[in-house]
């Protein structure tokens, strides 16, 4: 039965996350925007709170994400994927930079949760894992990565340079994408877990950024870095048919989460804009013909419609994952829509609020800087369009480049 409201059980989870966002994130939001690279100690406390929440079955982090196998019952589920996007949306309403640097909630944790063996899961349990994919010459084109992994006895030898590693400095583990044999292309790309402090792995640089400054973005050099053989995630063999698709499948689960970040930040900007306009006597009742209301009011409704669409596409993608339906196209749709409208809305809100929007006295200008990244990481707008177009047109990547 068509019902697009959030169930009570999940709403309570969302309310809790909203309270954290409002009570813990907002007060320190500006501080860590200004002191880029300073570690937000306030968040250490959050780690234990979150652990409690996760144990209670209402996971907030990426490690709760996975494609559910189709169960025996036909009953519709609103599970972890939905809980995670809802939480992320609410948390990012507070601050998206801080949300990206919550201890123990890295993207690497999602990869470990998705493909690690039980032994590995146990070994890496409770650790904070970053994800290192991008290289100076391989961004969206992740199949072109040059970092190598060579098996040397019982150890892997890693060599290469990784950039834009979120939480690269702060995390306990880094999941490194490397190729076993570059001539074999995508199929030879595997991911490896490197523990912090392993000799041969060094953080050489932290980026200064447009937004999400509370989150560290590191450059990592691997110079003859040796790790145990059983630190590879997934199989060692190169299966030209499957591997890369398997790696990419992680994105089907994480893209709705990035959509959630974008929706959360845009919602924050729209909420504050309405509040500021309210103080100046404007109210929003959805009355009046859409061509006869003030332009600024029409603009708010237009943004609201787009935001609402992005939010529903995000929940749809997460709902599909919760119910074992393949959602690659829908996950990309959610990310594409949320990425672009999130950026557009936050920028427009700055403009609508004039000097108040542009001023550091409010957070609108910060959100307009933060939001840009959601249309870039986990696949840019254009990569999402490629994924969607290939699905719709039934094209292989060699035909639709």
């Amino acid at each position: 039965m068509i019902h697009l409201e959030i169930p009570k059980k999940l709403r309570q989870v969302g309310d809790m996350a909203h309270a954290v966002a409002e009570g813990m994130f907002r007060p320190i939001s500006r501080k860590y925007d200004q002191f880029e690279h300073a570690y937000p100690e306030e968040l250490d406390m959050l780690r234990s709170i979150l652990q409690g929440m996760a144990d209670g079955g209402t996971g907030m982090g990426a490690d709760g994400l996975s494609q559910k196998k189709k169960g025996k019952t036909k009953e519709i589920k609103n599970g972890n994927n939905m809980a995670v996007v809802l939480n992320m949306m609410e948390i990012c309403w507070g601050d998206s930079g801080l949300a990206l640097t919550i201890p123990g909630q890295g993207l690497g944790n999602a990869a470990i949760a998705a493909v690690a063996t039980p032994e590995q899961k146990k070994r890496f349990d409770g650790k904070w894992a970053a994800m290192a994919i991008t290289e100076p010459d391989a961004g969206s084109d992740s199949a072109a990565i040059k970092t190598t992994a060579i098996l040397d006895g019982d150890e892997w030898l890693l060599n290469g340079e990784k950039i834009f590693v979120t939480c690269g400095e702060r995390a306990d583990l880094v999941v490194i994408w490397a190729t076993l044999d570059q001539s074999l292309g995508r199929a030879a790309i595997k991911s490896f877990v490197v523990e912090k402090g392993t000799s041969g792995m060094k953080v050489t640089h932290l980026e200064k950024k447009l937004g999400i400054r509370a989150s560290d973005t590191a450059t990592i050099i691997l110079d003859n870095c040796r790790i145990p053989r059983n630190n590879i995630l997934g199989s060692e063999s190169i299966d030209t048919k499957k591997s890369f698709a398997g790696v990419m499948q992680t994105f089907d689960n994480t893209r709705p989460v990035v959509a959630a970040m974008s929706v959360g930040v845009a919602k924050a900007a729209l909420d504050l804009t309405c509040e500021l306009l309210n103080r100046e006597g404007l109210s929003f009742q959805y009355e009046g013909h859409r061509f006869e209301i003030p332009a600024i009011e029409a603009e708010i409704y237009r943004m609201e419609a787009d935001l609402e669409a992005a939010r529903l596409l995000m929940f749809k993608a997460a709902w599909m994952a919760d119910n074992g339906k393949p959602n690659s196209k829908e996950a990309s749709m959610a990310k594409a829509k949320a990425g672009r409208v999130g950026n557009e809305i936050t920028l427009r809100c700055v403009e609508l609020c004039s000097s108040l929007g542009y001023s550091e006295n409010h957070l609108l200008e910060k959100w307009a800087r933060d939001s840009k990244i959601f249309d870039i990481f986990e696949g840019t707008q254009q990569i999402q369009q490629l994924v969607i177009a290939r699905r719709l047109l039934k094209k292989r990547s060699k035909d639709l480049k």
Partner: protein
Amino acid sequence: MSNNYLIKPMSMALEMLGRISSSEHVNRWKLREPALKLVYQGMRQSVRVGKYVQSRYFAPKSLNHDETLKKKIPPKTDRFDLTLTREQQMVRDALLKFARQVMRPISRDADNGEMSSDFFNQVNELGLAISGVPEAIKGVGTIRSPVSNMLMAEDLSYGDMSLAIASLAPLGFVNTITEFGSREQQARYLPPFTEDTFFPASIALMEPEARFNANRLHTQAVPTNAGFRLNGIKCMVPLGTQSELMIVFADLANHGPRGFILERQYPGITIENEKNMGLSAAGLSHVVLTDVEVPDTALLGEQEVHYSHQRMIDLARIGICGCASGTCQAVLDFVIKYANERIAFGEPISNRQAVAFMIADMAIELESMRMLTYRAASRAEQGLPFHREAYLAQLMCAQRAMQIGTDGVQILGGHGFVCEYPVELWYRQLRAVGILEGTFVV
């Protein structure tokens, strides 16, 4: 503005006076003097006296309270869910089949004004209107389901929006009666919709003016001793010239906009087919009401239910949003096939990002339209407030449906501009999405 508002009925009467006095027919039969006298008297007595008009429709007894449709249906669980009910899925399969096999092949001819009379018989067999009629009067409806109605609009519009609007007009009438009508009105006016032949009926809300605002009607209803007297001009009324029954919305002094059930034989109704940019098979018409007398039982929402004009408008917005999604899906499916087959520079044009990304965007925005529409419909069905959701859905659909329409033509290039392909037809139809109000109450 307000001046114009007051003067309008008066000026209309004067205009009519002018027309009568110059009519050859009147002059030839030396009727000039009596006719003028009649009009003069009519104007003088306008507010007080009304003619008693007889209804052609007869209700043996009014419905009992428990015989009307159930409203405000709560979901079985409160979980977020996008699956259709088994019944909705069955109807969807049947209607999509009808859309593909029956509607699409006659779409172009219908647009050219060549309609087979058989079409509406086939529509009647689908059981659209009867699905909204309570079981107590031999209908098959048990609940008021805006979601099911919206889905019908979507699926039929996948075939052809124009034919969909015509096919659904009687159901829109039925829905308005079950939503706002009294039990007596339901018993009186719904039985014809359960018959073996298609029974045309429709809703008349729009009026011919730029900046039309559904909350500010110029059509006037004036109370008389026997009921009400209606004057004004309605437009874009589906199936106008055929409709046996019509709900006309008019401004009732001190009450704002209200609905009145009109029977075709009431004197003073003139209906004229319109020529528009598109949607010609919908039979959109002007309805001119000149001193139309209706009994006081014609007024909607006087007895058991409170009439809410906004609710009616919002339910109809969901209907047109459903139509928009269906037609946009037709455009999308068509351009996917075309772009994959059309070769330029030695390969399909869909191999180019410039084309492929346009198609991706069409799909994203269509899904956005659909999500907003589904949410509004499901809230309406459950008895939750849905004005905001319907407002946002209409906003989204008005803009994005046209974008999808124009991009569809663009992808076909010159072929999109000619009538050999259906995309120019969809383009013309989709322009109406941001305009139509009150067309199909879900």
